[in-house]
């Protein structure tokens, strides 16, 4: 048994699965990270991923190109993000409650739209998803689709944006000390809204990965808590893009491992399925003591009010 899982670690399909499972988590975690760095918790992610998964799939099903689907998912994500920004940034509502409301709204709207478009189907209609980039000379990566490459490229890009550009400095500043940022002549409302909209677009793409790459159809429960895992991974990553990639890969590792441990196991398979969620909680506890939350996270900012 112990040898069996060691064999797994040496096998190529295992690492291919790790990266495939990690891809939507990388995209989603970067999205959450961007929002939270600017001081806004976005619990809408779970619903935005559902909406993105549906929108991307629908565009492709209607005859649009695969990249059109990705774009549609990003747009739908951005649109829902704009709504979240309206509630949390401009109106200063509770970020927890608004986010949960957004998740409920986006999930139910996507399910409603799916049922209206396809009132009676026995099996979910399918599309032709992204093909792997087999021309690439890199093992593991050449079994992935372009969306995985996109996710991997976005990691250093976001890090560069946050740490090497004036915009990134401004974004981090409104997440740490919005009053000081306002004093510097920065618009807190604009920066925060922009971050939430862009971050939500990434969440939409994360959802689209599920329908356009991992699977080829839309299912009602397909996101299945992945959005919440992203929220946990951001804390684990101490709000740093590089560590976010690491966290997503680690989660993918455990998820891929539990799938393979299920075969011929003595313990019911459900306990293996619990492993990744348990790991997310353990990771939160481990890093919590030294977690450096953005100082203004979850604090609405209203001009002239303390």
């Amino acid at each position, binding site marked *: 048994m112990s040898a069996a899982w060691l064999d797994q670690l040496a096998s190529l399909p295992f690492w291919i699965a790790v990266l495939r499972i990690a891809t939507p988590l990388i995209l989603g975690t970067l999205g959450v990270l961007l929002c939270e760095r600017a001081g806004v918790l976005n619990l809408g992610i779970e619903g935005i991923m559902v909406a993105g998964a549906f929108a991307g799939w629908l565009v492709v099903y209607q005859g649009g190109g695969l990249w059109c689907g990705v774009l549609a998912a990003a747009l739908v994500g951005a649109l829902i993000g704009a709504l979240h920004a309206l509630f949390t940034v401009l109106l200063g509502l509770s970020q927890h409650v608004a986010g949960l*409301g957004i998740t409920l709204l986006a999930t139910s709207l996507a399910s409603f739209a799916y049922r209206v478009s396809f009132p009676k189907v026995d099996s979910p209609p399918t599309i032709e998803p992204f093909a792997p980039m087999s021309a690439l000379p890199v093992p593991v990566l050449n079994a992935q689709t372009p969306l995985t490459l996109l996710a991997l490229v976005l990691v250093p890009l976001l890090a560069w944006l946050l740490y090497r550009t004036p915009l990134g400095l401004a974004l981090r500043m409104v997440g740490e000390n919005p009053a000081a940022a306002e004093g510097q002549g920065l618009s807190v409302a604009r920066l925060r809204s922009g971050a939430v909209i862009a971050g939500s677009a990434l969440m939409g793409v994360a959802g689209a990965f599920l329908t356009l790459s991992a699977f080829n159809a839309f299912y009602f429960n397909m996101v299945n*808590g992945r959005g*919440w895992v992203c929220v946990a991974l951001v804390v684990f990553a101490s709000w740093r893009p590089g560590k976010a990639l690491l966290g997503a890969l680690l989660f993918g590792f455990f998820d891929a491992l539990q799938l393979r441990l299920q075969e011929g196991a003595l313990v019911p398979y459900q306990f293996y399925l619990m492993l990744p969620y*348990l790991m997310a909680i353990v990771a939160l*506890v481990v890093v*919590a003591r030294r977690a450096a939350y953005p100082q203004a996270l979850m604090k609405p900012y209203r001009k002239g009010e303390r």
Partner: protein
Amino acid sequence: MLERRSEVSRVLLVAAPFIAVAFTLLASSLLVAWAGAPVGRAYALLLEGGFGSRFALTETLTRATPLMLTGLAAAVAFRARLFNIGAEGQLYLGALAAVAVGGFDIAPWLLMPAMLVAAMLAGALLLLGPALLKSRFGVDEVVTTLLANFIVLLFVSAMLDGPMKDPAAMGWPQTVALPDGLQFGKLIERSRVHTGLLLALALALGLWALLRFTTLGFEIRAVGANPRAAAFAGMPVTATMVKVALLSGALAGLAGAVEVAGRTGYVTLDMSPGYGYGGIVIAMLAGLNPLAVVAASVFVAGIQVGADSMSRAVTVPTYIADVIVAVALLSMLVATLLAQYRLRFAPRPRSER
């Protein structure tokens, strides 16, 4: 853009729920029209299906019973700013505990209280973990309670496949039924309304009194309003948080037992169509007031029951109920805010300040 009103507008505060519901119906009618149904008839069917007949009303009350309990669970936790999003998991664990204890071989008169206490304990202990992690290590309870829901559902699934599976259930993953003596009696004849409703109503009243008249209630409200000020005033913030967690988890766990003893009779993996998440929405709609939770849960249950019945008559998917509830929640939040703030689009001239 937002300017604090010098006085909270009482008129607006009372009108807020009505404005929110009106806006919700207006917005949702667009979706109904898109689904190709006549809007007026669809709403009439929804209203009739949820509230319009004896059958509709009793079905709505049956569905409102667990929602009241999860709504109370969310309301008391949110009052102390303990964001318990785990009521769904607490409900399932409570239901499982109820069935497990229901099979014990103890004095019959002891069995019913033992069953209810077991369910409450299961829910309470499940929330105690995230609450302690929050107060000890600063781990965000939203994420831990959300993740706990998935873990608990997998645990319940394992139990229904294994040790707690009913061998006579023809392979269906469900537990054995509670003995007859443990099932709640009917409150209204020829309906599914059971005495669990009375329990929920009594607890709503009790929770309202607790928050309003007791020291613990005062501490809960103080900790929720400003934890640092509460600590500065010498209040036991951590202890209060723990008590709130136990109370909230117990209420959600009890919802599970009430569903099993009042409606289903046994535990299945689909016994709750999201009662735990619904409770959060209900608590927010009710402005975290336990008495208003009763009204809000009847409203939400009525929409859900009505949408079910409407979708059988016209081509509107039942998901419209979730959309309506979500829009109601968000517009309620905005409407309440506007009672405290006024919108001002142009900045005032400097001389006026």
